[in-house]
């Protein structure tokens, strides 16, 4: 047991950043911020559900049905991420080579990996599943539909529910691992599969656009939409009995027709059944995944040899060498290439669908300005949020990252080359997206070009700042030991900044377009001002990057 605890703590330290636990003040600050974040998400959930009930989207007694929808969505996403992460952590983690040498029972290593993942999943749930469930329970209790005891009770089933995607993910990680190995071996199949999925998505979106009615009038069609939403929730509940089972364990049994939830003996029995299901899954994982885990771990440790390249070395110029290296890394790291391709292809499709919907609406002046604002927001959000990956670029090199300091070239060059393909690939995406948006709202060519450059410069500025975050707070050790860092502080900071920047930029766009439309009858002045703002932001980020690199690499 002591060994298990040591192993768990050791791996947790790699997986979760505990640097805040050094001083009491830091612990207090981190806990306070964590609690505030939790409270804000809970409050937002409560307010959204309450408002939905006030404006008549659904009756308050429908809250459990909403919970079924949200929890299903959350568990599906958790299952996908758990399967992928567990596959990497169990069968491909670098720390396996170290763990196998420890003088502990081999089963304990396997269990410690699962426990670490479960604890991490609980931590992740604190920012989505748990506060959303709590917000829904608060609504039910405040409306007298559930007893206040539900506040105390809900935590027990939630702990068991969170274990389900972890255990199912451990089982599914086995076939996923074989598929992953297969695709890694025949990389052309990866490209074909990705291309097929992408084609299917595009076909689905085009069909969806064709389904959009000629006229959309949400105000007058509201009762019909309300009925459709109600029927949708009823169908979700009817078609997902296991999810209904889980939600009834959290909020209690339906005591009356379409109303109150009561935690009774039936709830306790269902809770017991959930406990049995969890243990059965754990036993299944133990019997199925553990032997495979050891065979792969031992194989990696004992016989796995790196493949030697038989290609003759070619001498390139020292500048081209880095470009060539980055090209190979980008093409070979499927997570990086898919992430970028997804964002760069999905953003124009999202904008096409959004504007097809807007096109069916009969709008007033405010509506037009809102369309500009939301288009800019929806373009910027995924584009800038994708830069979170840039905030991990240098750390992903692991221990090789430290070699940058000894390379016989000005440090800025290899650092900038890392961003090269991202900088190039985003140009067509941004301009195609802005062209789709501009064309649907009747912008002229100048407006489209200037707005395209404005968004591109904003994207570049944020990308360079994200890269700087990684340079200033490197996570190379974590990547070197596990290969994956799930709670990278630089990634989080970059994502938060992406949201703040996008919202601020959208608000500025709203003000400028409104003013420009009223005063000049043309949107060109607004586009020029937005370009100036982006230019200032991008230039300041570049200067900051250069100055910090100089300080970090040469003056430090």
């Amino acid at each position: 047991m002591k060994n298990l605890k040591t192993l768990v703590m050791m791996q947790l330290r790699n997986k979760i950043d505990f640097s805040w636990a050094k001083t009491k003040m830091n612990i207090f600050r981190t806990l306070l911020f964590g609690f505030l974040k939790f409270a804000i998400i809970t409050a937002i959930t409560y307010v959204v559900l309450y408002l939905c009930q006030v404006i008549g989207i659904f009756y308050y007694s429908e809250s459990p049905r909403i919970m079924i929808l949200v929890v299903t969505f959350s568990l599906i996403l958790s299952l996908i991420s758990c399967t992928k992460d567990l596959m990497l952590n169990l069968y491909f983690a670098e720390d396996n080579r170290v763990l196998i040498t420890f003088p502990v029972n081999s089963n304990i290593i396997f269990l410690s990996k699962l426990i670490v993942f479960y604890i991490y999943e609980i931590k992740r749930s604190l920012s989505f599943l748990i506060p959303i469930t709590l917000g829904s329970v608060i609504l039910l209790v405040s409306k007298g539909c559930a007893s206040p005891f539900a506040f105390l009770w809900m935590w027990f089933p939630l702990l068991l529910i969170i274990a389900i995607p972890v255990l199912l993910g451990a089982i599914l990680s086995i076939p996923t691992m074989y598929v992953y190995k297969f695709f890694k071996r025949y990389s052309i199949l990866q490209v074909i599969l990705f291309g097929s999925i992408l084609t299917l998505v595009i076909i689905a979106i085009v069909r969806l656009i064709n389904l959009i009615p000629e006229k959309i009038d949400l105000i007058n069609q509201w009762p019909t939409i309300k009925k459709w939403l109600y029927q949708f929730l009823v169908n979700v509940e009817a078609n997902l009995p296991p999810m209904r089972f889980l939600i009834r364990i959290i909020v209690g049994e339906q005591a009356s027709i379409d109303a109150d939830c009561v935690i009774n003996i039936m709830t306790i029995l269902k809770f017991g059944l959930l406990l049995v299901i969890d243990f059965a899954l754990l036993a299944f994982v133990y019997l199925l995944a553990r032997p495979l885990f050891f065979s792969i771990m031992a194989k990696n440790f004992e016989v796995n040899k790196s493949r030697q390249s038989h290609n003759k070395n070619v001498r390139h110029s020292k500048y081209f060498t880095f470009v060539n290296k980055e090209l190979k890394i980008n093409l070979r790291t499927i997570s990086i290439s898919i992430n970028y391709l997804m964002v760069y292809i999905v953003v124009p499709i999202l904008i096409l669908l959004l504007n097809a919907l807007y096109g069916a609406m009969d709008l007033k002046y405010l509506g037009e300005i809102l369309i500009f604002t939301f288009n800019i927001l929806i373009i910027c959000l995924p584009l800038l949020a994708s830069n979170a990956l840039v905030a991990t670029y240098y750390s992903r090199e692991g221990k090789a990252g430290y070699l940058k300091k000894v390379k016989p070239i000005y440090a800025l060059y290899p650092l900038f080359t890392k961003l090269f393909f991202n900088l190039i690939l985003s140009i067509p995406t941004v301009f195609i997206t802005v062209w789709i948006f501009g064309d649907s709202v009747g912008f002229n060519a100048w407006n489209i070009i200037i707005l395209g450059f404005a968004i591109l410069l904003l994207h570049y500025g944020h990308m360079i700042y994200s890269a700087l975050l990684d340079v200033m707070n490197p996570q190379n050790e974590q990547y070197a030991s596990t290969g994956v860092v799930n709670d990278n502080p630089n990634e989080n900071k970059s994502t938060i900044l992406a949201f703040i920047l996008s919202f601020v930029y959208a608000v500025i766009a709203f003000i400028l377009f409104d003013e420009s439309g009223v005063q000049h009858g043309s949107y060109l002045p607004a586009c020029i001002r937005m370009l100036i703002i982006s230019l200032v932001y991008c230039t300041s980020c570049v200067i900051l990057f250069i100055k910090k690199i100089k300080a970090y690499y040469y003056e430090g």
Partner: protein
Amino acid sequence: MKKSVILTISIIYILAIVVVGFLGIALKVYNEKVYVEKIICITDGYVAVENDEYCDGVITVQKNQEVVIKCQVEPDNATNPNLRFDYDSDELGKKFEFVENGDGTCTIKMLDSGTTFIEIVPTDRNSNISLRIKITCKPSLEDILG
């Protein structure tokens, strides 16, 4: 991209459609008044009854069991879709308890075995229709055995 980021962007995307759909739509003035033509009860356990001169449907409940009566109106574009719940006030507190929930629904709790009627009427005054629901509470085994 993280799960929470994808989810947040999806929510903002939907909000972008809803906000423009509500705040940006050009206002239209309709002179035509559309009256409620039909009331449909969507409560679980509601059974529609045909050719009964006393009621249009039945809901069977247990003693002290609460039931939320939810209804929808047709056509969807009715100018005033609000509903009123009428009942025999002499029976209130003796046979059943009644609470209007404020969200267009009401909750009824049968205190004893027997039947009671709830009539649901549109508040637009011009619709000449209503939905009469019979709430039946069967006696429990304990009541029968005394």
